[in-house]
């Protein structure tokens, strides 16, 4: 029965892939015949985003349920799961990310279902793209080999490039172009690093590379240390592009702003989480040896500097934005900084990885909620973009304003929300790793962050819309509402009882990163 258990081990991926194929067929076959005016791809609305949104959410949640059942059964107990290693590692880590990415992707799909129709964007290929990108993200989280790493990374990225450029207007295409060029460049860096690693160690699997790296400096070792360092730098730089860490963050605000909001959400949530997953796998699977992973040498000091720079730059620039979407983009840069802090702490503290996982989880639900609320603050055909657009929302749309406040408070890291415990875990890990200065810098940064999140509250509750602003009928959408409700529930639940998943996070975080 190994065959079945192998299938079960990859069932989340299989479900999502099959769902994506079916959805593609449904989307292509179910649409009206091409218009006769010669347009190759019609822009005439069919208004089916709602159905497709629900469909892809169902597919992704089903994938999440399979990942969850895989978690319940325990991947380590499955015969046949080993056979997939190193190409796809079935362990608690990948199952955890499976659940998380399916959750993030599914909620983004719901947002898409509400958003696209409302704004008259008839580009239903959004949903197949979303599914394939999620598949890539899930495969990335389980990748234990440079080959699958690269293929999964590109699967995810290519889908997202197209999602960003979904709207055929100048800004969207510009965003897509920037994201594509820099993303492609980053992918090439990663790939060349991978090629050099292969040359230096003769392995493409992370465990093998890790073992070879461990022999550096020992008699008889043929592994060239310099080459390994160069390769490591290239691979990690490429991944840092995807998590939007300073100084590889330049694309983020433009891409986030130009993309349709559900795509922005997906980028902020799934892409970033998957990139962190593979960053953890690479750093602790292949480069965990103390020659490259101690405070004196190797990646930790560099990443520590980048983490501090990332959160500081993100927070400082976010405070100066006039567009809420751009502010959220910079804030997501800052959040990458906090999570990187956890990654650095994981070098010396056993709870570092778990803290990163919990941070990402809290960040996922808060971010999805915030973007969802932002969608609902807009009106037909006109997104809420600037702070001014949010003026008076507290009165016009009290429930949405309340939910938005909750998510922002969570992102700011104020107690009794999931975001607070996310930050708490990361800072505790930093203290555990005796990186006191980093912990204090992180705390001060969370204070900086409060300013601009608060500004949204100020506009929502304390400013009146300018008298000549169009009378806005607030948008209503069941799908977006559901997504927000789910996110709000999780934010509050994990904010009050964070340890309800504490053991799970720890188990996921303590799995060996490569085999």
């Amino acid at each position: 029965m190994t065959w079945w258990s192998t299938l079960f081990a990859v069932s989340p991926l299989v479900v999502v892939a099959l769902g994506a194929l079916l959805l593609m067929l449904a989307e292509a076959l179910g649409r009206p015949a091409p218009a006769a005016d010669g347009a190759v791809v019609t822009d005439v609305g069919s208004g089916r985003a709602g159905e497709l949104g629900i469909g892809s959410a169902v597919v992704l949640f089903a994938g999440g349920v399979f990942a969850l059942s895989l978690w319940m059964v325990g991947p380590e107990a499955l015969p046949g799961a080993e056979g997939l290693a190193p190409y796809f590692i079935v362990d608690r880590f990948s199952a955890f990310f499976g659940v998380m990415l399916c959750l993030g992707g599914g909620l983004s799909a719901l947002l898409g279902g509400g958003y696209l129709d409302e704004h008259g964007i008839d580009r239903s290929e959004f949903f197949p793209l979303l599914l394939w990108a999620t598949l890539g993200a899930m495969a990335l989280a389980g990748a234990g080999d440079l080959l699958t790493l690269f293929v999964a990374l590109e699967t995810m990225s290519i889908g997202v490039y197209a999602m960003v450029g979904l709207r055929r207007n100048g800004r969207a295409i510009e965003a897509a172009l920037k994201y594509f060029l820099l993303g492609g460049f980053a992918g090439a860096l990663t790939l060349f690093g991978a090629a050099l690693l292969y040359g230096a160690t003769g392995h493409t699997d992370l465990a093998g590379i890790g073992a070879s790296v461990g022999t550096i400096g020992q008699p008889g070792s043929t592994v060239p240390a310099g080459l390994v360092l160069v390769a490591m730098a290239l691979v990690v730089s490429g991944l840092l592009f995807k998590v939007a860490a300073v100084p590889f963050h330049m694309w983020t605000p433009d891409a986030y702003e130009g993309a349709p909001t559900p795509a922005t959400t997906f980028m902020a949530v799934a892409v970033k989480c998957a990139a962190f997953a593979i960053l953890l796998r690479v750093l602790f699977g292949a480069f965990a040896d103390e020659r490259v992973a101690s405070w004196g040498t190797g990646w930790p000091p560099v990443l520590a500097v980048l983490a501090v720079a990332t959160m500081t730059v993100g927070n400082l620039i976010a405070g100066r934005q006039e567009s809420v979407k751009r502010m959220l983009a910079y804030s997501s840069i800052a959040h990458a900084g906090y999570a990187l802090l956890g990654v650095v702490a994981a070098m010396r503290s056993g709870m570092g990885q778990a803290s990163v996982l919990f941070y990402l989880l809290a960040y996922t639900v808060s971010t999805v909620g915030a973007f969802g609320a932002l969608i609902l603050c807009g009106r037909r055909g006109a997104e809420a973009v600037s702070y001014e657009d949010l003026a008076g929302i507290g009165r016009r749309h009290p429930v949405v304003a309340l939910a938005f406040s909750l998510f922002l408070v969570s992102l700011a890291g104020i107690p009794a929300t999931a975001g607070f415990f996310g930050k708490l875990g990361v800072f505790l890990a930093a203290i555990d790793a005796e990186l006191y200065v980093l912990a204090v810098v992180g705390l001060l940064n969370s204070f900086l962050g409060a300013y601009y999140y608060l500004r949204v509250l100020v506009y929502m509750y304390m400013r009146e819309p300018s008298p000549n602003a169009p009378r806005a009928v607030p948008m209503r959408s069941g799908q977006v509402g559901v997504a927000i409700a789910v996110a709000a529930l999780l934010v509050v639940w994990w904010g009050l009882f964070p340890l309800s998943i504490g053991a799970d996070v720890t188990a996921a975080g303590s799995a060996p990163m490569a085999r």
Partner: protein
Amino acid sequence: MTPLGSALVGLWPYVAAFLVGWFVPRRQGWAERLGVATSALLGVVLIVGLWPVAPAAGVGDDKPGEWPHLLNLLVFLPIVGALGVLFLPRQAPKVLRAVTLAILAGDFVVSLWLLGVPMTTGWHFQYIATWIPAFGIRYHVAVDGISLWLVLLTTLTTPIAAYVSFGSIRRRTKELCFAILLLQGAMLGAFVALDLFLFYVFWELLLVPMFIIIGVWGGVERIKASYKFFLYTMAGSVLMLAAILYLVWVHTDLVGYPTFDYLALSRLSLPRVAAALCFYAFALAFMVKVPMFPLHTWLPDAHVEAPTGGSIILAAVLLKLGTYGYLRFCMGMFGGAAWQSGATLAGIAIGLGILYGALVAWKQADIKRLVAYSSVAHMGFAMLGLFAGTRAGVEGSVLTMVNHGISTGALFLLVGVIYDRRHTREVREFGGLAKVMPVYATIFVIMTLSSIGVPGTNGFVGELMVITGTYVSQSLGGFAKVQAVLAALGVILAAVYMLSVVERMFFGPLTNRANRRLPDLSPREVIALAPLVVLVFVIGLFPNIFIARMRPSVNALLEDYEQSWKAHSEMPDHGQARMRAQPEGPRRKGYPEPPPPRAEPPGAEAGREVARLPTEEDVP
């Protein structure tokens, strides 16, 4: 005699007080009469009922008659009420107001129960529930003789503030009710929390409603003011959180399991440098709230821009969180470092708090700003008493906190009254008001006298005790006497600026035509002010009612303070922290017990220590 008859005989002082109160105000309506009469009754009830008959200093571990859920009820009644208010219709502001006031009044009545038990050494009405066991976070609340008074101050002033707000604020009633109730719950929670995490949660939680109150219903510059308020406090509390996490970490290192419990963490003796850093992290958070120079700049803006009700709560309760926090956490947990820094900080409190505050207040043209700066000066007294670290100083300080809540709260209310009528707060706009608004003038003068500290009023007792406490202080070193004298100078300055403003506003010719027809206090305003006036005299004439109840707690606190100073002076600058011995007796109650031995974590590899996030199983 029938039971009814004997009851009536027994009740004669109350009946008499009521009747006197009813007949004393001449030419007034029934509402004013009722207000005065009730206040008089209340005053007698306070004096008779609270007179400490039995020596309160006894030690008792078992405290029968203490309902364990009292504090839960106290804290969560407003919070649940706030959530409940969300479901009431926005179109019925009267219902919203009535429900809010009923909840706040109920909370006040519940809090009176706290007075019904003797405040012996130790913790009372203690309630402990596990919340997040793996981090050692518990829901742990209790009061002692110190927090008792601050809780009562909160439950008394918030309804008054709400009542006043409902008179002047007519828009967004629902949000107002929500914010006030949430604020009340958070403030009470912060006063009774004995778990640092719980305290931090409440401490942060109360920022949001206050931010909203200032930002939504405030004056012209309200948004700037609300930002300032939020960010100043947040900056302080971030450092505090860092220190809390560090403490928990040290505790885990030493004892083997994490805890956020105040009683456990206060036994830590850190190496001197770490202790000083942690002390300043905490102290900064609290000094922002107090506020102490140079962290005070948010206060005048916040006060000036806040609506009257917000100002009252801000002055009466929020500032007390700073002094209370210093007393409870800085002195309680870092006694050594606090002792060491006491002299310097006392200098700052006098020079830049009391004297500077008074001088700046003197120069203000805006009455509200003047009262705000007088707050800086008064809170300087409260802090000075704490820095002195003597029994008289600390008791005087706690009393000053209560006094300041009453008199400054009342002054803000009075300023709000005149602002509602004239829409200006410039002193030069007024003059000779005593002729048109006699009741208003009377109460204003009473509150002014209380604020200055004239004998017979509450302010006198508090400030006198602080000054004597400073005079005899050991920890302030050679400058104690000079500092006491300088502080006394502050009292004189207070008299100068307060009396000058009273003189300019109320006496002299009635020059401004706009003031000719100002109506005197409305029944609503009289009812709101009456309890405060009563308290001014009750505290001023019978301070023992209050001091007797806080004395055991203050004694215990100072004992700890001294021990912790001794332990501190034996610690090296750097090195290993250690735990002090657990104190015996009732103050010991509520310690977390050590957890059962923990199983080897799953997935631990041989030879590599796997630390991890704690899980549900690691319940201490």
